[in-house]
């Protein structure tokens, strides 16, 4: 029985010495690999993706039906039929983009609400940090694996509903439409990534997985439902409209409202999506009559100009995601690792 376990041979030791330099990021790679595998095979991912896929396919189907009706009635050609699919809803169902905007955050939260405190509760964190890896490899690996899972999911979903749209309408997308679709999916990844990093932040700060899940969900509900109402109230208080004929008052109120609303990642995302999927959007927010003098009505913007229009939105979304992650990172690195 003494030979049940092979003793470490010198050859093995030497091999690891050489391999050490090459395998330096082994910790990050291993964590990333494991987390990604966990995500893709986990129940919650399957359930939520199922929900999003069903909602998305239904929305596209209804969108295509509505679109066919309106187009035949108007008997005019629309250069962006394919994109319209994603933004058109029916009387029974809201458009595809609505579902992504509403359900996407849930997916991000589901992937990460127990990222750190789950390991702590299970007692695996202390085992993990006693391995020869840098401590940040754990949180970095988790974040990157979450993003990768999201990217896979979002692009697969985009391809799926795009394919369905193609079958339903029979109109192939132009290159411009295709690029806009890709940009839309990329922005979606960043948007859901923000919720992912927010959930990681809560899972780092709160010890209980239930608490972090609730905190993330509360934030999501706040921004999805209440934030708009609340910001409207604040805007009315700061810049009240006493006379609806007074353009300056109305403008001031609208500007306040918009500025406050742009604190919400949900609004940033929905503005960005609107601009990307509807080339006819030329400006966000109130537009004065004098500003549109000389504009050709209904003329679409090229993709580059649309992107320019929402560049601040993209920057803000990315920054929000990275700030959440950075705070989580710092908190995690400074935390004690006691089990229990």
């Amino acid at each position, binding site marked *: 029985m*003494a030979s*049940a*376990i*092979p*003793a*470490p041979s010198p050859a*093995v030791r030497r*091999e*690891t010495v050489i*391999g*050490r330099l090459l*395998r330096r990021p*082994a*910790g990050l*790679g*291993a*964590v990333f*690999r*494991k987390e990604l595998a*966990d995500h893709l095979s*986990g129940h919650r991912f399957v359930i939520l993706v199922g929900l999003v896929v069903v909602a998305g396919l239904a929305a596209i189907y209804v969108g295509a039906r509505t679109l066919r009706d309106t187009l035949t009635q108007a008997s005019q050609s629309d250069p962006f039929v394919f994109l319209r699919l994603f933004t058109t809803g029916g009387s029974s169902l809201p458009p595809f983009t609505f579902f992504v905007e509403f359900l996407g955050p849930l997916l991000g939260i589901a992937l990460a609400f127990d990222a750190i405190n789950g390991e702590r509760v*299970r*007692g*695996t964190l*202390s*085992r*993990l*940090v*006693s*391995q*020869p*890896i*840098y401590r940040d490899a754990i949180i970095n690996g988790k974040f990157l694996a979450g993003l990768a899972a999201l990217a896979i999911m979002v692009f697969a979903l985009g391809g799926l509903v795009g394919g369905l749209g193609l079958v339903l309408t029979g109109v192939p997308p132009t290159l411009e439409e295709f690029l806009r679709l890709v940009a839309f999916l990329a922005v979606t990844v960043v948007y859901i990534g923000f919720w992912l990093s927010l959930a990681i932040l809560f899972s780092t700060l709160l010890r209980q997985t239930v608490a972090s899940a609730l905190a993330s969900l509360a934030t999501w509900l706040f921004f999805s439902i209440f934030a708009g109402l609340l910001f409207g109230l604040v805007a009315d208080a700061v810049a009240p409209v006493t006379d609806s004929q007074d353009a300056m008052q109305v403008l001031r109120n609208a500007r306040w409202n918009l500025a406050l609303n742009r604190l919400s990642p949900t609004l940033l995302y929905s503005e960005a999506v609107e601009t990307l999927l509807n080339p006819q959007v030329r400006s966000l927010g109130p537009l004065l009559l004098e500003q549109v003098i000389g504009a050709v009505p209904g003329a679409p913007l090229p993709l580059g100009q649309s992107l320019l229009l929402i560049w601040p939105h993209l920057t803000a979304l990315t920054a929000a995601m990275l700030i959440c992650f950075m705070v989580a990172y710092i908190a995690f690195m400074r935390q*004690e*690792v*006691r*089990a*229990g």
Partner: protein
Amino acid sequence: MEQPQAHAVIEARGLTKRYGQRTVVDGLDLTVHEGEIFGLLGPNGAGKTTTILMLLGLTEPTAGTARVLGHDPLREPLEVKRQVGYLPENVGFYDDLTGFENLLYTARLNGIDEREARAHIASLLEAVGLASAADRRVREYSRGMRQRLGLADVLVKRPRIIILDEPTLGIDPKGVDEVLQLIARLSQEERVTVLLSSHLLHQVQRICHRVGIFVGGRLIAQGPVESLARQLAGAAPLVVEVGVGAGEQSRAEHLVRAIDGVLDVTAYADGLVLSCRQDVRAEVARTLVTHGLSLLHLRLHTYGLDDIYRLYFQGGMQDGQRDPRSVASGAA
């Protein structure tokens, strides 16, 4: 550098950890030699886990230094963690993965070549008696199985030292035996040094070559279990119990008080309890018999492990005020 048979692999000098006002570990000096099994024994909350975390570089000491295999855990944590396996108290695994997959993850984190790791893990699972459960999900494992899986997990990286925090906690007596025997066997076969912590002296004394008694953040005694009793008793006076005939108690008390070396005499039911500087039994016997008293029995109390246990683990006693009588009655 040092004697080959007593090469120190863990050395702590004045290791101290304070959380605010509370001192958890207070000036710890600890040396663990290569190849031995060292038991860190103490009641819950004595600072054992904190000490272990400092040795692994997972917690920063407030003062003092530690060297593990010649490395400073604070400066070179990866070097230490590469060679030290740590089994935390209440070890956890990923419930959705099998036992084998859990260990494979550890191997990957250690950057071990996949093929080599698979073979090694299979042999480790065999060694801890989990070969048949290797492909079952950990969620189905019992507490004892998890603990054994933990031992295998610790050995995946082929460590030179393994540190086990309360390895027998929460398992039934049979499981405790198995785990302890496993630790003893693995330490021999794998030629690793073992540092284990426990609050159950009785359980671990069997496999430890040396133990350190750790109370209130301080190591109050260390050495082989047999010599610990002497060490601890060294400072305290010896206790001799004298049984005399009925009605002779007060005369006897008067006589033995005069004997050189007797510090204090207390009368009790049918005899006397003496606390004395040295073994005075012969003197007591001679004195009593020459004065015509009947000596019924004479007994010297030594500090056994039970006494150590009572003295330090069951609380109630502050350092420096050990009461020999309570020890005597405990041993009687």
